[in-house]
């Protein structure tokens, strides 16, 4: 039972670490399913991270209870707006999507640090308090699952799970989802059926921007508490999780949870005597080694959207 207690104890923190990754990866899913590769997720997260920090910092004294929701809204908006650059370059200008995404990543940290210094005089923006963790009444007391899923939760976790459910429904149960996926598989067929490929791809990229921005905002209000110009590679990890999860919402959930849990175990292993016997280096590299192995194994049967990464020219065959 010892192991179970350890799992129960660190699981809430693993979930907290997973959530920004999950929502960002889900954003990437929309973009890629519409046919636009988005390696700018990292930069979009930074943008949301920054937008949330500026907003929360600006209004936390006036509106102590509303600051965080408004900040997260600003994060999603900031990410969405910034992603329009990527959308314009890759959809209208038919630019190389990898290069455009790289540009997003490079610009985001430079622009945000510059703006942060202009607005607040410091490259770091600290907010007073983030979201407080809560136990869900009576559900947290359910033996087994209670301590795992319903104790010490941030409300953003439930928001993201809701968005995950909505995304699944949107992608697989609505005509919008069908059209979006068609644009990622065979845009000219979709166009011949009357689908506006440009519009659908814009939607895909903008949603990815909003979700990645939200992911960055969630980092701020949960475990970080301070904007510092970097999300430490989580955007790229989200991209890996997207591939690992085979471009499917539930696959992405599984992949990000795996990353989140493995990273958390590695982080806290030193404090837990039962885990401290395993060399930390082994634990830290574990999720990456598994991902590499999985990518190699799945590369044959990979289900990447077929037109992902290819510019769309109207009238092409």
């Amino acid at each position, binding site marked *: 039972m010892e192991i179970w207690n350890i799992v129960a104890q660190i699981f809430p923190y693993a979930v907290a670490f997973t959530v920004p990754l999950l929502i960002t990866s889900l954003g990437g899913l929309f973009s890629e399913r519409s046919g636009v590769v988005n390696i700018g997720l990292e930069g979009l997260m930074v943008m949301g991270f920054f937008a949330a920090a500026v907003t929360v910092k600006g209004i936390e004294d006036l509106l102590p209870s509303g600051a965080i929701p408004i900040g997260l809204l600003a994060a999603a908006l900031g990410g969405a707006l910034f992603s329009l650059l990527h959308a314009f370059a890759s959809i209208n200008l038919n630019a190389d999507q990898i290069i455009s995404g790289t540009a997003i990543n490079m610009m985001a940290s430079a622009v945000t640090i510059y703006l942060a210094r202009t607005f607040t005089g410091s490259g770091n923006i600290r907010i007073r308090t983030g979201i407080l963790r809560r136990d869900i009444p009576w559900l947290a007391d359910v033996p087994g699952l209670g301590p795992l899923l319903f104790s010490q939760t941030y409300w953003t976790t439930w928001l993201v799970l809701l968005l995950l459910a909505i995304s699944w429904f949107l992608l697989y149960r609505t005509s919008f989802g069908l059209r979006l996926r068609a644009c990622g598989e065979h845009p000219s067929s979709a166009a011949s059926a009357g689908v506006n490929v440009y519009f659908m791809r814009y939607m895909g990229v903008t949603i990815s921007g909003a979700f990645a921005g939200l992911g960055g905002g969630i980092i701020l209000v949960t475990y970080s508490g*301070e904007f510092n110009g*970097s999300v*430490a590679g989580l955007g790229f990890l989200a991209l890996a999780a997207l591939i690992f999860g085979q471009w499917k919402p539930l696959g992405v959930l599984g992949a990000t949870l795996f990353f989140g849990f493995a990273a958390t175990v590695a*982080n806290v292993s030193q404090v837990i005597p039962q885990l401290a016997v395993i060399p930390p280096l082994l634990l830290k590299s574990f999720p990456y080694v598994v991902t590499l192995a999985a990518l190699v194994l799945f590369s044959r049967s990979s289900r990447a959207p077929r037109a992902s990464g290819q510019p769309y020219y109207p009238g092409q065959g």
Partner: protein
Amino acid sequence: MKRIRRLGGRVFLVAALACMAFGSAAAGAALKVGMVTDAGTIDDKSFNQGTWEGVLKAEKELGVQVKYLKPGGTTEADYLKEIGNLYDAGYRFIVTPGFKFETSIHKAQNKYPNGKFVLLDGTPHKGDYAPEVGENTVSIFFAEHEAGFMAGFASALQLKEGPVGFVGGMEIPPVQKFNWGFQQGVAFANERYGTKITMTPENFVYQGSFDNVAAGQQLAASMYDRGVRAIFAAAGGVGVGVINEAKTRAASGKEAWVIGVDVDQYAEGIYDGQKSIILTSAMKRIDQAAYDLIKTELEGKFPGGRTLIFNAANNGVGIPVRNPNLDEKTQRTADEIFAKLQAGGIVVAAEQKGLIK
């Protein structure tokens, strides 16, 4: 008429020239003090900021002219370039914070024999770690173990019982010395003042980096979950995660203390009104060191070629003067112990022997 005007113009010109001459004479008297920043911003709440505050204090109180330059990168060449830029602009007294400047200052002290250099928390060498402090350079170190000792002692006295922990960044000497001193401070309080603070190996960890905020938060959360009452965080960005976790807990009404590092971190731990989770901070008075050295130069007593240790005895390390989270009695006792430390009545070891990690 024309002539008068010309004359008037000439008088004006002479007057202007006189003013300029006078002005430059006044400026010539003022020492020009330059600073090159390390990685991070001038307001990093750590080394850069501390150094710059000392330089600014010198500007205000000693009337020196000041300027800082931020290098484009953190290589020796980047640092040397900015040192050269300052030197060429007439800033011949140059202060640099952090051990990363060690090789750059080694080159600069030979390249600019007329310049004067202060290296905080490092010693010049040519890449082989064999100290070579030039006649125009002063190398400064801090007795982190004494700062850690005071913070550990004051925290133990305030908390009286229960476990405490430590989260370090990389396992390098300045961080280790903070840790070792901290443990000795706690042990001292347990021994002499009857406190019952416990320290166990699993609560004394080095995360391994200075920027993994998430790991800092998760480590802190796990420690607090296991009953740790206060965490000494000497870990840069990892410490940001520790502070954030403690703030979240305190805001939900749970006890969680953090002991700050390098500078007085009280303001960073504020979660509600004026209430902060920072119990006290183990400080290196970087600002004091920068200011003092500028002062010695103005007095013509610049200790070139020497390595100085800033410790309790010369007020170079310690805990903040005001600690709102320590009660009066604790503060008073801590002040007494600090006086003893200064006088040499208490000796803190700067090595591990018998301590955790």
